[in-house]
């Protein structure tokens, strides 16, 4: 599937959603309120304490926004298809994705693209841009390019997490609770991971590398004089696309198994 076809799917999806414009707008307002509340709580907290482990309010806002923004981008493509995959298989609706001259993976993602994350993207991007102007550091062209790449890589990594769990639908009957675990785990990176013990930091860096989404890009941007920050900052750019490719392979493996083992 090429980008033009994918964007045609997106056009149709937007058109469909606009049939229920009122619900869409109320939904967007609801989401923005929800995230605003999360920002507000952290802000209130830092009114008392100034910093969490040396991270100021604006730095935390940057870290937090990077997480939400990359999640919203990744989830636009993968959340709805992956969360509904188990039901799609059980209902027998998955067959339809194997009847077109398209890769079932991209066809499935395109068909269930979710435009509803636009509200997440708007609020997190606004706070991110605001925090960039406030954070105490020198922005250079290289750092801005790095930030763009980090957002892309982080989005891939968030999507990869959802795709991996979705792929398990082909093997297990229901995976809804694994998604809940995933979201609980993601709570760990809402704050700088330096507040946790070494073991947990290692886990979040190398085993379930969620810290690559926002923590390592942030510390690289805030302080690139430390060598390990540089190295991990670069790793963070690579791990997203790589993780997504691996999750894609796993998904295709699952889809093949579906074709062989039946639905």
């Amino acid at each position, binding site marked *: 599937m090429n980008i033009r076809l994918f964007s045609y799917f997106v056009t149709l999806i937007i058109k469909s959603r606009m049939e229920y414009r*009122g*619900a869409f707008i*109320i*939904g*967007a*307002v*609801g*989401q923005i*309120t*929800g995230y*605003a*509340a*999360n920002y*507000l*709580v952290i802000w*209130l*907290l830092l*009114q*008392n*304490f100034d910093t*969490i*482990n040396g991270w100021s309010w604006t730095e935390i806002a940057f870290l937090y926004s990077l997480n939400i923004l990359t999640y919203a981008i990744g989830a636009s493509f993968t959340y709805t298809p992956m969360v509904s995959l188990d039901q799609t298989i059980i209902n027998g609706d998955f067959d339809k994705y194997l009847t077109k001259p398209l890769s079932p993976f991209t066809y499935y993602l395109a068909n269930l693209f979710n435009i509803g994350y636009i509200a997440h993207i708007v609020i997190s991007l606004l706070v991110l841009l605001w925090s960039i102007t406030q954070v105490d550091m020198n922005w250079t062209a290289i750092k801005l390019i790095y930030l763009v790449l980090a957002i892309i890589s982080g989005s891939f990594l968030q999507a990869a997490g959802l795709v991996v769990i979705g792929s398990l639908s082909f093997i297990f009957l229901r995976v809804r*609770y694994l998604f*809940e*675990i995933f979201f*609980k*785990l993601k*709570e*760990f990176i*809402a*704050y700088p991971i330096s*507040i*946790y013990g070494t073991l947990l930091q290692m886990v979040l860096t190398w085993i379930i590398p969620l810290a690559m989404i926002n923590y390592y890009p942030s510390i690289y941007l805030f302080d690139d004089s430390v060598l390990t920050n540089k190295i991990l900052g670069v790793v963070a750019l690579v791990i997203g696309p790589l993780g997504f490719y691996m999750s894609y392979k796993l998904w295709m493996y699952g889809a093949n198994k579906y074709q062989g083992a039946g639905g």
Partner: protein
Amino acid sequence: MMRAYYAITCKAFFRNTAYRSEVWLRIFGNISIVFIQISIWRALLGTGSLNGINIEAMITYSLINASVSMMLMNKVIYVVDDKLKTGNIISDLLKPISYPLLLFYDELGNVVFQIMFTVVPTIFIAWLIFGFSFPTEPYTIVAFVISLLIALAISFLLGYLIALVSFWFLTTFALDWMVAALITVFSGSFLPLWFFSAEWRFIADMLPFQFLGFVPAAIYMGKMDASEILWMIMKGSVWILILWLATQLLWSRAIKRLVVQGG
């Protein structure tokens, strides 16, 4: 009549047992959240204290709040929503039992299940890991139980109220997000109201959300004296009355509309 309600609660309880294999995952999720909060407070407070609150107090506070949040009934919004969408609500109206009470006892079955299979194990495990203090005064325990009942009633009425409002807006999830946002900030479940600045504390005091987290935890921890507790119980009861009247009003309107539409 009592027997009928008891039967409803039992039925809801046993409906939950079908999902008991997922209980472990839920406990894991809760422990994670408590762990994250404790890590943050450890980073913030270290070995010191602020406004007389030290890390031990915050551990107890976080755990109580995590436990109370599992018992809240505001998710009743989705039960009503489904029934409105499918039209099943009509069959409930024909029963000789009050519809909101039927919902309440149904939810109570869920809550009892949550307490037995999620709250108690979570507290036990958290107690092993983090340590946890128990109240010494018997009247504290009595007051705490009363505050829990108030939390149940207010959360139920809030959820039910929103469900009735959504009868006109036809989108439940956005309204639920907004209420969840208010709960996030003003229940004090993450940031206790002690740490709110004067004007934010004023707003929180004017709203019913503090009863869904902060009030039970503060009573449990002995941070309120007898007169404060009495005042809070009175205030909570008034909120229950206000919310109940509001639901009655909306309910009669909704019924009129249903009758006019002919179901």
